[in-house]
Every structure is written in structure tokens, then in C-alpha cells.
């Protein structure tokens, strides 16, 4: 019951956010300097009749609030307009890319967790010593390195010189599972290391807090081995903030790994965003930003739910 109430409240709080967000995204296009119909026509000088036709076709001759109402009503039904460049519905376009982005996000998250959590534990248990310095330095590097540059360096080393992984391109899993997985290795490393840095820092500080807690002293006093104390008693509590953060980072990944997808030419959300931006395909940009931010809000909602589930203190 308490759980349902909690979820209900969180969803109720998220709804106005989504509504305001959709308004902002809608207004962004309307606030463009110049005539949107002219932009739709390609920006070149066209005759007035053609502009009127375009205005009518896209409903631009209606008052702004009617346009907004239409757009919002459409969005609620899953209709996000039509791509100006290739005449495909924006929703269909996005649906086709979702799987790829999801695959990349999952693989990157797996790498981030596999690196970030052990490093954070090592740093906390070796606080102030060499292990801490090395782990913290790695985290700082992961946070500070520009993703696209790391991508280029990895391609240079592992594709150009060693020829272990393909430099770019995406192969559907069903076509060729091995090549598909190989193609995701480098981009997932690129994305995973950045998130690993963030996770490591939070893991370290949560672990340091946990190691000072009374129950850890009790566990040590009982004569448990240090590893058991760290992994069973401290880690379980220290993981809580990290799980929340991980879900939020995952939400960010879903919004599109713009540069990484660009470097490795992976046709996910990120590459679609860049392509639509460069093609001035504003309908797609609008729809994409809306969908990815709704997914991000859903991921932070999930983070709250997870936090509730793993933290028994909130349940009673």
C-alpha cells in the first residue's frame, strides 16, 4: 500500500514536468527567427502560394495554442509528426532506432558497473593509499576524457593497428551475431568508462560512509573476516545511492550517446539527432527530444522505485 502511494506520488510529480517539457520543446520551434513555413520549404525563395500550401498542410495557419493542442494530442496518441526529409512518421523512425540505442545502453552500463563498483570498493578500503590513488585517478580520467576522442583513439589502436574490432558500422544481431557483438565492444567501452568514473566516485564515498557505521564495527567485533565485512555488510548499504545513480545514468544513455554513435556510425537515437539537426528536420528533433526525455524521466522514476525496493527502512 505504502509502495503504491509512493509510486503514485512520484508519477503525479513527473506528469507536470513532462507537460512543461513538451511545451518548451514545442515553443523552441515556434520561437525560431523567421517563417517556419519558409524553413519547411527549404529556406529558398518560393512563391507565396506554395508557402500558403505548406502552412495549411502543417497547420501553421492556425493560432499557436491550437497548434500546440494538436501537437500534444498527437504526441499522447504516439503521433509525433512526419519527418520532412524522408516522409516517414517520426514515431516509426524512432521505434526503429530504439532497439539499437537500448542495446548500446545496456552493454555500456554493464561495463560501467563492472569497472566502477570494484574500483570504488578498492578505493574506499585502501583509502589514502596507492590503490585509492590509482582508482581515483582512473575515475578522474574516465570523467574528463572527451568520449569522441577516446573513441577515435580506440579505433586507432584496436581497429587500425591490431584489427581486433571493426572501426565502425552496425550489424543487426539476427544477421550476424558475432560481428554485431564485436561492433558494440568499442563504443560500449567508450560510454562505459565515462559512467564508470561517476559510479566509482559515488561508490567510494558511500562505502567510506558505510565503513564507519556502527553495524560494520559490530560485524568486525564479531570476528568476521574483513572481506566478509566489506562485501556483505558495508557493500549492501553502500550500493543504495549507486543504484539510484546508475538508473539515472542509464536514462541519460537512452537519450542517445550522440557523439559515440557519430564516431562509430551506429544508427541509434544519437546519430538520428545529429542527422536531423544537420538536415534541419525539426519535426524529428522535436519528437526525439520529447521521447528521450520522457524515457529519462521514466528511468529516474525507476531509480526511485529501486531505491524504495532495496531500502527496507522506507517500506515499513
Amino acid at each position, binding site marked *: 500500500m505504502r509502495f503504491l502511494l509512493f509510486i503514485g506520488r512520484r508519477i503525479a510529480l513527473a506528469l*507536470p*514536468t*513532462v507537460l*512543461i*517539457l513538451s511545451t*518548451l520543446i514545442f515553443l*523552441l*520551434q515556434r*520561437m*525560431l527567427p523567421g517563417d517556419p513555413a519558409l524553413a519547411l520549404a527549404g529556406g529558398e525563395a518560393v512563391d507565396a502560394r506554395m508557402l500558403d500550401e505548406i502552412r495549411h498542410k502543417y497547420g501553421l495557419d492556425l493560432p499557436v495554442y491550437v497548434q500546440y493542442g494538436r501537437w500534444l494530442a498527437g504526441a499522447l496518441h504516439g503521433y509525433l509528426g512526419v519527418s520532412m526529409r524522408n516522409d516517414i512518421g517520426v514515431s516509426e523512425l524512432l521505434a526503429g532506432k530504439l532497439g539499437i540505442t537500448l542495446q548500446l545502453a545496456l552493454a555500456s552500463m554493464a561495463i560501467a558497473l563492472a569497472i566502477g563498483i570494484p574500483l570504488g570498493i578498492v578505493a574506499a578500503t585502501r*583509502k589514502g593509499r596507492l590503490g585509492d590513488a590509482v582508482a581515483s585517478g582512473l575515475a*578522474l*580520467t574516465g*570523467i*574528463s*576524457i*572527451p568520449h*569522441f*576522442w577516446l573513441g*577515435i*583513439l580506440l*579505433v*586507432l589502436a584496436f581497429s*587500425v593497428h591490431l584489427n581486433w574490432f571493426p572501426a565502425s558500422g552496425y550489424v543487426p544481431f539476427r544477421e550476424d551475431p558475432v560481428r554485431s557483438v564485436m561492433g558494440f565492444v568499442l563504443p560500449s567501452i567508450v560510454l562505459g568508462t565515462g559512467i564508470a568514473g561517476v559510479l566509482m566516485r559515488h561508490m567510494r*564515498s558511500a562505502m*567510506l560512509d558505510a565503513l564507519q557505521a556502527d553495524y560494520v564495527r559490530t560485524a568486525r567485533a564479531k570476528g568476521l573476516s574483513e572481506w566478509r565485512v566489506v562485501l556483505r555488510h558495508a557493500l549492501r548499504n553502500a550500493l543504495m545511492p549507486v543504484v539510484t545513480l546508475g538508473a539515472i545514468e542509464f536514462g*541519460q544513455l537512452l*537519450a*542517445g550517446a*550522440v*557523439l559515440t554513435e*557519430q*564516431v562509430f556510425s551506429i544508427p541509434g537515437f544519437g546519430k538520428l*539527432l*545529429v542527422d536531423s*539537426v*544537420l538536415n534541419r528536420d*525539426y519535426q524529428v*528533433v522535436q519528437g526525439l*527530444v520529447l521521447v*528521450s*526525455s520522457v524515457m*529519462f*524521466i521514466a528511468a*529516474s522514476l525507476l531509480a526511485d522505485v529501486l531505491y524504495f525496493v532495496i531500502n527496507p527502512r522506507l517500506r515499513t
Partner: protein
Amino acid sequence: MPTIAPQLPRPAAVRRKSRPQSRPQSRLRSAGRRLLRRPSSVLAGAAILLFVLAAVLAPFLAPYDPLQSDFLMIRKAPSALHLLGTDEVGRDVLSRLIWGARASLLAGFLPVLVACAVSVPLGVACGYAGGWLDMLVMRVTDAMLAVPFLIVAIALAAFLGPDLRNSILAIGVAALPTFLRLARAAAMTIRAEDYVEAARAVGASPLRIALRHILPNMLPPLFVQASITAAAAVIAEASLSFLGLGQQPPAPSWGSTLNAAQQYMTTAPWMAIAPGAMIFVLVISLNVFGDGLRDALDTRRR
């Protein structure tokens, strides 16, 4: 009765009482001293200073004209003549990197100034006054925070049109919600402090309280956020110009140099390695400096 006491100038005592900003000032000063004792912070600060110097002195430091192409020297490996090699139209990579520091530093610092200039007064107004303004601004902030920083910057830069000025504006707007949150939270915390209560009791106007009591006290967290945001802004600028949405070629910027370099990765790797290393060093310096600042300002932290 002591004879000295009545001679003590009363106004001075009152002035001392009504000047609580002497506290944060000394807090900043002692934090500065702590910062200078950390070798990593000093090193990072020195590196940032070097980048600033390189950008300012670019006309004197750069060995070649960054825009001068030389078709006899296309994609030549690093040599004594061209220390970092040449690019796809024979321009000197080192000279372009030195000039490119201007775009990166402008994009690192100006968005932070833009974000601060808007968010500090607005955040203080929200946090101090509350009410419907606070409600409205915070809901919009929440909505903006739901879109990743870089995506906001890309979308805005796309709508504003690709050039350096617009990308700086876009990054500044993208950074706005974080600063607004911070300024508001700081204003709310400080509002509850005793010395603000005292100032209000003495009859100080809200504007005076905001300027003399709240503003100086919220500087420490703002400084920390500013250095972290500057690091993110440098990466964002490089990303935007890498995507062709920032500084337009042939004007030099690290991001667009990397974009060009990607095509010649096998034959001219030096074109890709140096500009990325520049971004990396600048960003890591800003991050290390920000970490040091945070630790120096907050003595309780580990």
C-alpha cells in the same frame, strides 16, 4: 566602571555586527590558502593559466598563420618544421591548436558567466521570496533537467544556427537549471540563518539582505559548480564543433579539427591525437581544480 569603554566608537561595533560577509570572505581566503597547499590543485591551476596565456598570446606564440594552407605540405607527420605535423590542407596543427584554445576557453567560461548572470538573481528571488515565481521557475528547471545537458545544447545550437556565439549561448542555457537550483537552495539555507534574521530585525530591506548577506555567502558552492560546469562546457563546445554546430571552419577549434582528423585516421593520426589531448588536459585540470576547491571550502569532506 572602566574608563575606556565609553570612548569606544559605537558605530564601529554596530558596523562590525552588520557585516557578516566578513565571515565568508575569510572563509574564501582560508579556502584559498588550503587550495594552494594541495599540489594537485596548484598544478591544475597552473595548467589552466597556461591555456589562458596561450589563448591570449596566440598571435605571438603560433609559429604559423592558422589559416594559411600550404599544398606542398599536406598531412605531413610531425617534424622540426611543423612540431605537430600539418593537416589536410597543409596548415600547421600546432598553430591551429594554439588559436583554437580561444574558442575552447571562451566556450568554457562564457556559458558559466551567462548561467550565473541569470541564475543568481533569479535563484535568490525564488529562494528568498518563494511563491508562484519560485513554483514556476522550479517546474521549468525540472523539465530542463530531464533532458541531458549535451542534448539541450545540441538542440538549442541547432535551432539558433551553427556558429561559436550561438553554441556558447546554447551551452549557457543548458547549464542554467543546475545553477538555478544551486542558487535557490543556497538562498533558502542562508535565509534561515540567524544573521539574516538579525538583519531583517534591524530593518534592512530585502534587496540589501540579498546583496550584502545572501550573495556573498552563496559564493563558495557557486565557485565549485562553476569550475565543474566549465569542464563540461569545454567538452560541450568541442562536441558541438565536432558535429559541425559550433565554431565554423576554417576558423580553428579543437573539436572541428578532430572532426576533420577522423577521415584521415589511418594516414595522419597526429591530426587526431593532439587536439583531443588538449581538450583532455584542459578538462581534467578544470575538474581537479574544482575538486580541490570543493575540498578546500568544505573541511568536513574526506
